[in-house]
């Protein structure tokens, strides 16, 4: 494994992009879907629902954010372990709670905030393990 700062820097940079654009995408999708209304498991409504989803600007902004997240995710997965990247990016849950509270005005209870802090603690523990454990192919 390369012990220089390079691989770690680009790993952290891409995880930062994931942490920003993943939550932003989810919040935008949530806002868009709330406007569209509850989804039922009825085939008759599927086409109408799909057309409303595909004509929503908020949904498309959310999709653009998630594509940015996904590109960063795929790039980082080309050298770092999945079982490292997935937990390390979980700080995004804190971002989601913050955005949901301040942007969407959702009620986030104290217990839920505590959960977010515990998640971040878990992220710190995970972040102290090496990003790669398998040999390059």
């Amino acid at each position, binding site marked *: 494994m390369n012990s220089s700062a390079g691989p770690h820097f680009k790993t952290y940079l891409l995880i930062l992009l994931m942490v920003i654009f993943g*939550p932003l995408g*989810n*919040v935008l*999708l*949530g806002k868009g*879907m*709330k406007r569209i*209304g*509850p*989804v*039922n*498991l009825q085939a008759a409504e599927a086409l109408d629902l799909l057309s409303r*989803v595909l004509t929503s600007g908020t949904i498309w902004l959310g999709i653009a954010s*998630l594509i940015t997240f996904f*590109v960063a995710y*795929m*790039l980082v*997965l*080309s*050298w770092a*372990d*999945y*079982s490292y990247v*997935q*937990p390390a990016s979980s700080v*995004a*849950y804190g971002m*989601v*709670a913050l*955005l*949901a*509270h301040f942007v*969407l005005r*959702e009620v*986030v*209870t*104290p*217990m*839920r*905030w*505590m*959960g*977010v*802090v*515990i*998640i*971040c*603690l*878990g*992220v*710190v*523990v*995970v*972040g*102290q*393990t090496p990003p790669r*454990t*398998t040999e*390059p*192919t």
Partner: protein
Amino acid sequence: MRELIFYLLIIGAGTGGELCVSRAMKAVGEVKDFRPTALLGVAARALRVSWMWVGLALMGTAFFALLAVLSLENVSLVVPVTALSYAAGALGGKFFLGEQVSRRRWMGVLIVCVGVAFVIMGRR
């Protein structure tokens, strides 16, 4: 009931899709050149790996399930619940991708899961 179906699709198809995509990207090799043309080349190589297509199909399924459940529940609940895939992800990383998941990393995943449980319990 329909929420449960959507959550199961998000966690099951989402985790499966990510594992497949991860496997495909490992086959493509480490990305060292970040210029746009080089990245397009990486995308073209990735799309020639069959695991990538399986992964994209599963992730697409998970995406539509996510849209459905976001129409029913708050984002601050839905997104943490989807983190239940962490245990599945670590298991998949170990058994599907052959990664060595250390005890410390397992502990981190466990702590994250406890946090997720608090988030779920803080529903009201």
